[in-house]
């Protein structure tokens, strides 16, 4: 019951936050001097064409009228039409969703599978060489900008060592000769479902560098938090008591301490998700992955405002939802929060 009320309240809050974001994004994109009609027409537009498009698409109406029209359409599920690609924004977002979903999900998994063990082991083997190396890795992760890392990876592994592909989601020839039947849109899942091993292998190879670049920062953050959280827990009285009682070290560390150390890590994962969404703008552009980040980047520099609004609202929604899930997971794993309800 409590959980339901909590969730309902958070969802309501989400709606309010999204409303605020929509206003800010709309105002900014409409106040920047630009000519959406000329963008739509392309090349050397003529005045008649611009006037006609301004009329047809309502670009000369006052800004608050345009905003209300936008919101009215939004509630009906119509996100407008992209000025650059001439397609409905909703279709563009749907089409590009899978590339970003694949990239971000894999990056999160890597961040967890690498960052958590690294941090925990770092803490249990504090001040050893292993610990020092992992701390070095985590500092680099946090301080290296992801796009710079992307360029270095491309130069090293693609251009010089020829070990991994330079860019793209899949090899051009393979895409042309072994086309992927679209079921989920995920280039790792669909080929498996249809037995298209060639395409699967190529897609997997193409994801290695982008995932590394995107995940590296989060690996750094997760490692640091996991380590410091674990160190703190290991110094707690109850752990010392457990040692005093003679419980074996692995049992104490990996069963009791570990679970408690995870709590801050879960929070940080939720925030990392936000960093990753931001990182998709650079990573997808550098690696030519046709996802939401690439689309968002192009839309912003051309001031394609329906597209900018679409990407902004979608990213904001998913970030808020992910953090809601994180908080609900907290409820599930931390009995202290569950059993001692806060006053509403």
């Amino acid at each position: 019951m409590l959980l339901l009320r909590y969730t309902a309240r958070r969802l309501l809050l989400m709606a309010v936050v999204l409303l605020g974001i929509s206003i800010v994004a709309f105002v900014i994109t409409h106040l920047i001097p630009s000519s959406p009609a000329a963008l739509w027409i392309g090349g050397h537009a003529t005045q008649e064409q611009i006037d006609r498009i301004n009329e047809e698409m309502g670009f000369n109406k006052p800004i608050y009228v345009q905003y209300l029209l936008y919101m009215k359409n939004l509630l009906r599920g119509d996100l407008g039409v992209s000025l650059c690609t001439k397609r409905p924004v909703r279709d563009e977002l749907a089409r590009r969703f899978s590339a970003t979903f694949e990239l971000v999900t894999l990056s999160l998994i890597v961040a967890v599978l690498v960052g958590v063990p690294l941090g925990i082991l770092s803490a249990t083997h504090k001040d050893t060489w292993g610990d020092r190396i992992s701390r070095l890795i985590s500092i680099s992760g946090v301080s290296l900008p992801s796009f710079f890392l992307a360029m270095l990876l491309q130069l090293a592994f693609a251009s010089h060592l020829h070990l991994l592909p330079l860019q793209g989601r899949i090899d051009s020839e393979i895409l042309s000769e072994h086309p992927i039947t679209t079921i989920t849109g995920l280039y790792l899942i669909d080929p498996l479902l249809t037995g298209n091993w060639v395409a699967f292998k190529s897609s997997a190879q193409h994801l290695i560098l982008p995932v590394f670049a995107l995940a590296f920062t989060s690996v750094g953050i997760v490692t640091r938090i996991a380590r410091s959280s674990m160190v703190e827990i290991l110094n707690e009285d109850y752990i010392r008591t457990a040692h005093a009682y003679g419980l074996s070290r692995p049992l104490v560390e990996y069963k009791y301490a570990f679970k408690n150390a995870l709590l801050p890590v879960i929070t940080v994962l939720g925030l990392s998700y936000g960093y990753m969404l931001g990182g998709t703008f650079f990573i997808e552009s550098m690696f030519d992955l046709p996802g939401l980040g690439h689309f968002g980047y192009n839309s912003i520099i051309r001031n394609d405002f329906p597209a900018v609004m679409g990407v902004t609202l979608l990213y904001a929604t998913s970030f808020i939802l992910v953090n809601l899930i994180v908080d609900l997971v907290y409820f599930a794993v931390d009995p202290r929060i569950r059993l001692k309800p806060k006053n509403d």
Partner: protein
Amino acid sequence: MYSDFADWDPSLAFSLEIWYLYNVYEPLLWYNPPGSAEQFTPALATSWESSADGLTWTFHLREGVTFHDGTPFNAEAVKYSIERTVKMGGGAAWIWGAVKEIEVKDDHTVVFHLSYAAPLDLIASSQYQAYIFSPTAAEKGTDWFMEGHDAGTGPYLVESWEPGQQTVLVKYDDYWGGWEGHHFSKIILKTVLEQSTQVQMLETGEADRATLVPIDSLEGLRNNPDIAVTIIPSWMNSQFLINVQKPPTDDLLVRQAICYAWDYETVVNDIYNGMATVAEGIIPKTMWGHKDDLKLYTFDLDKARELLAQSRYGPDELKIDIAYIGTSAEYENAALLLQQNLAKIGIEAELKPGPWTTIWEEAKNLETAPNLQSMTWWPTYPTPSDWIYGLFRTEDPTLFNLSHYSNPVLDARLDEAMVLEATDRDEAIRLYGEIQQMLLDDAVAIFYADLNGRITRRADVVGAVTNPAYNAEYFYRLSRKQ
């Protein structure tokens, strides 16, 4: 390709789409590179003639041609294509403005009746909005095109389009030109956003051609034996338009002084690294109609100071602003150099870089317009009028005439010349020559660079013939060196 294709409808497609339009569709005539023996190569029309008054144009069409969807090509298709393009009014549809009526005389003869004389042969060779497509296919509408379908007669057809990733063209077996000799059977146009990535792909051989190689990478590429860099003439040129209505550049003497303060040689040799030549007025030297003995400005700071001394503006009123596309290293360096030289003659210049969409909007309105505005222009179809009409004709509201220049004498001469292009080309050329000098005398812009294009390709891809009239590569001519 630095970006994906947005428009697949040949009646509307207007910019980067030229890369597939040029290979998948055909117009009635192809314009030949300047210096060729003939001005045109027959494409879908094999011969043509016009009446003496330039009002009636008859095109005789090629026989035995089919569209990619199997529909036979005939005069009906020509009439349909052009009428549809004009009706939809997108892109450069205005080039057909003189056409009153298109008459299908028989299956292979089409007659254009014009309401005023116009050079229909030049217009029919335009790189945009002059392509003939299959009526049966086009009936399915723009949405059908937008799925990545094509309806052309050209040597290649669109096999697949993965949005955001790549377009694959394959050879059309029934192409009327035949497939004798060596040709590529498949072309993959990949979308690669970053310049550095394009360069790397070219170096590793993953790409045979890169379209957006930055000028500073060229040296390195030239030294690579597997890569060929060819500098080609183009009809693109760059200028800084001078606002003739905003003080202090509303004074002719100030504008002329600025033109004398521009270091023409240094900009072209050092900033553009040889990728441009010094411009002579508004029309590129390689375009027909360019006047050869124009009175030009040179880099002469003393002359500039002399003119400024006579200006009605005192030394503390000589402040100007210069707007340009911020991401262009060439514009920025040229503007910085100008700023330095202007300081030497007593003009204080403020630099205002920005994205095109923003600076264009600001430049259109006199309240926010700068004194100097960067501009790069190229024609839609091969005519000198494109520059003059687009940039200097009286405009209200302002679109591209960012000098805010209004000269009724020029407007009249331009209108006359455009009509005479069809009936008395020599007289038209004479008038265009007058206009070019007028623009220089009024110092409406710093005309500083005729830009060169560049083809950066793997050295084993041969056969390219460069043609400034079309901003893309004609793949049918290319082959791999055996």
